[in-house]
């Protein structure tokens, strides 16, 4: 894949959307082709760029396209596809009202983060030719869940796969004893095949997230104790997952050197970037964003 993938993570309200917009804009101004995608269920990008945005990319400036993914749409599409498979396979499908059951499934725990992951994979596939794909992520809880999802799924799938293999091996033994040793050609178990298929998909996703030459993660925090505490939690969780945080952005900084020093001490191997608090307060609109200087060389992103 050609594109480099940027994630902006952090506590709610620290300025993930603003920073992702800022970096995306600066990269585009530097001649790169950038796609900025908000996968936060509560979108902010349209307020920052002051244009209406939807799930189709819209050009903001030459080189920069932005979109806001409709996660509900992804859940619905996923359930619809499953329902279609289900109807084509099950013989007694008409016996109970499947449609009603699937309508309530969209409130199942875990489906929201799966929808985020589906949207993520789809974006990476469709816009692989861009130089940069920038993701504005949901607040901590959902982000950590969807980033962990490929690994959690792999764990379950490996257990299920071993179990399935055990069943198939025993069935194979029965067939061999009954039919004699000669024909041991076994048909492929559709469930094992499906599991293998899922393992491939999640393995690819998990590897991509952990590859720090492709994926760059920006942790955004404010100069206050609460966001520092939550940032430490995010740091710990992502490190456990094997993901690396490349940049730490202290947003809305009031130039407290003591705080910067403390932050730097607690997050090793990270490039610390400081963005001062805006004089006017809000950072919305292209003019305002263009007037901000990035605290790093944009080529290094």
């Amino acid at each position, binding site marked *: 894949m050609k594109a480099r993938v940027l994630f902006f993570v952090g506590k709610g309200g620290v300025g993930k959307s603003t920073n992702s917009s800022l970096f995306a804009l600066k990269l585009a101004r530097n001649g790169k082709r950038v796609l900025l995608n908000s996968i936060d269920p509560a979108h902010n990008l349209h307020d920052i760029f002051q244009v209406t945005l939807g799930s189709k990319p819209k050009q903001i400036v030459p080189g920069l396209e932005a979109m806001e993914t409709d996660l509900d749409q992804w859940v619905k599409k996923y359930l619809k596809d499953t329902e279609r498979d289900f109807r084509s396979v099950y013989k007694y499908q008409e016996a109970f009202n499947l449609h009603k059951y699937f309508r309530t499934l969209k409130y199942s725990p875990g489906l929201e983060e799966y929808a985020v992951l589906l949207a993520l994979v789809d974006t990476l596939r469709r816009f692989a030719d861009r130089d940069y794909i920038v993701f504005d992520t949901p607040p901590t809880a959902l982000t950590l869940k969807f980033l962990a999802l490929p690994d959690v799924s792999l764990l379950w799938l490996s257990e299920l796969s071993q179990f399935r293999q055990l069943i198939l091996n025993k069935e194979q033994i029965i067939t061999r004893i009954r039919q004699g040793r000669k024909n041991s050609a076994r048909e492929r178990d559709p*469930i094992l095949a499906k599991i293998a298929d899922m393992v491939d998909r999640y393995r690819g996703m998990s590897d991509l997230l952990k590859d720090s030459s492709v994926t760059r993660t920006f942790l955004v925090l404010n100069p206050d104790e609460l966001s520092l505490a939550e940032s430490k939690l995010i740091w710990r969780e992502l490190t456990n997952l094997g993901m690396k945080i490349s940049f730490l952005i202290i947003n809305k900084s009031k130039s407290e050197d003591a705080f910067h020093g403390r932050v730097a001490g607690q997050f090793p191997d990270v490039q610390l970037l400081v963005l001062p608090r805006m004089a006017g307060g809000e950072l919305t609109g292209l003019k305002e964003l263009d007037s901000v200087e990035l605290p790093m060389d944009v080529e290094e992103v």
Partner: protein
Amino acid sequence: MSLPRWLEQIRLFFKDLQIINSNKATALLEFEVLELRNIFALLLFGSFVGMPAPPVHITLQLLPLMEKDIQVMLRRINVAHDALAEVVSTLGEP
């Protein structure tokens, strides 16, 4: 009855004997496989009976392929209250 025909009858007799024996030999293993299929289905859809289950997206993607396993699970549920009969039928007549 000509001789080859008579021999053929004996051959068939031993062949049937072999089938009976191999069925007897695999009956227990077959029961084990059914039990494993039952546990596999339970593992996937355990959330319905309060067991920890895999993420919903995994179960939902496997659900369309699980018809046979779910049938096994439902059959097991039907006989679950009569464990003694189950054991007797597995072990066979005394």
